[in-house]
């Protein structure tokens, strides 16, 4: 009798124990999705989180280097050109257009996901196509921006022709006299390449190097020094501070600017590029009717959608720290 009770009690406890195990592992035995989200969506989110760490690393490097430099190129001076607008000064306008292109493509992506939820193949295809166009347009804009910086303004990973004046001063004329181009502390300058110096520049007024002589690489003139890359370092007379009365030559701006710009926007651009590639692959799958058979509300479109919105999300922060601040 006693043993019987004990045995019964034992099994009872055993059952109870089993049940307990079942409850703690219920989410993990494959029966139910963790966090009520599919494996793919969940892992896409955690991939994006890890990607956010990489971008944050870049932005931390940018923030720390920028604020540790005595001067830094002013973004609205560096990014002031617009395609087909020549040398017209349109600060930050082009990069705003780029932001709108990316925002628009984010909206079309949301619409594609929504059409996917109601299993509307045609709707998904149309909106995904528009998203691909948006992504490609953004890449095109970035290509122009890079081409201008590298080709026209001669920015490299280690050489940055955008500088900032740390003293008041006045530029010199070809005959060594003071020109009418006066600048103050904090004014930005861009050292032009000899091939561009004929078409005006951004130092405010023109009317310098009136001699009209052609500059030669590696030569020194009364009003400028030409370095071995063909950039014109203009000379100026300092009119304030302890070095007042001394003639100085424009120097390169903070070295880190070019490297940070190319690596951060390049890494983001690489994300946009791979996003476009994946969008095209999934677009082809949508057209082929692959996801119609799966009957899961076009989950693949939702996953690439997450990635695409993340690219837009990162751009919000790149736009903030690189262009706005």
């Amino acid at each position, binding site marked *: 009798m006693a043993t019987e009770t004990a045995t019964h009690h034992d099994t009872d406890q055993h059952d109870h124990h089993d049940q307990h195990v079942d409850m703690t592992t219920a989410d993990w035995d494959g029966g139910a999705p963790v*966090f*009520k*989200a599919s494996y793919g969506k*969940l892992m896409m*989110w*955690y991939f*994006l*989180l890890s990607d*956010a*760490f990489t971008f*944050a690393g870049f*932005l*931390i490097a940018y*923030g*720390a*280097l*920028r*604020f*540790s*430099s*005595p001067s830094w190129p*002013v973004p*609205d001076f560096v990014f002031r050109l617009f395609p087909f607008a020549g040398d017209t000064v349109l*600060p*930050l306008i082009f990069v*705003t257009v780029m*932001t*709108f292109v990316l*925002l*628009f493509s*984010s*909206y079309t*992506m*949301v*619409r594609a996901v*929504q059409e996917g*939820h*109601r299993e509307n193949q045609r709707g998904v295809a149309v909106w995904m196509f528009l998203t691909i166009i948006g992504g490609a347009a953004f890449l095109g804009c970035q290509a122009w921006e890079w081409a201008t910086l590298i080709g026209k303004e001669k920015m490299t990973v280690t050489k940055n022709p955008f500088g900032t004046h740390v003293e008041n001063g006045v530029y010199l004329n070809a005959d060594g006299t003071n020109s009418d181009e006066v600048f103050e502390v904090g004014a930005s300058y861009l050292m032009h390449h000899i091939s561009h110096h004929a078409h005006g520049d951004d130092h405010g007024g023109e009317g310098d190097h009136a001699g009209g002589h052609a500059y030669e690489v590696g030569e020194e003139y009364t009003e400028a020094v030409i370095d071995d890359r063909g950039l014109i370092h203009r000379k100026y007379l300092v009119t304030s501070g302890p070095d007042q009365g001394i003639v100085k030559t424009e120097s390169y701006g903070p070295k880190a600017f070019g490297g940070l710009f190319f690596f951060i926007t390049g890494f983001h651009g690489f994300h946009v590029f791979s996003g476009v590639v994946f969008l095209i692959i999934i677009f082809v799958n949508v057209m082929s009717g692959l996801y119609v058979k799966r009957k899961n509300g076009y989950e693949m479109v939702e996953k690439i*959608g*997450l990635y695409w*919105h*993340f690219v*837009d*999300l990162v751009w*919000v*922060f790149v*736009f*903030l*720290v690189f*262009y*706005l*601040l």
Partner: protein
Amino acid sequence: MAHDYEKSKSIALKTILLLAFITVIEVIIALLGKGYIIKGFHAPVMLIGLVMIGLSLFKAVKIIFEFMHMSYEVPAFAKSVLLPMGLLVWAVIAFMQEGNSWKERREFVNDKNKGIEEVQQEEEPKQTGSLIKELDESDFQ
């Protein structure tokens, strides 16, 4: 279902319009703060920076919660992603401050070094001219 679809469609449209509007406001503030819109008007950098970071964070929240559907996920999941992301934003801001401190220390050291250099220059005047003589034909005769 059809009702849900119409509703989410209008939410998406409202969100994108809001994001576009905030972007325009941000650019206007950036240009206003740097004296492009009103000649000679410059706003304090710190104030502009804070407003800009605030607006950008608001944009980020809108993108994550509406476009990426985070508001429809389980709260524990949302926390597991958002908490690390929030810490990253803090890290970016903290390192800007850190960089500023590096700059101040470097300036401090430079100022001290400049003082030492001036003392040394007074002690030994800089050598001028060159001792190297170029030889010409007369030296060999």
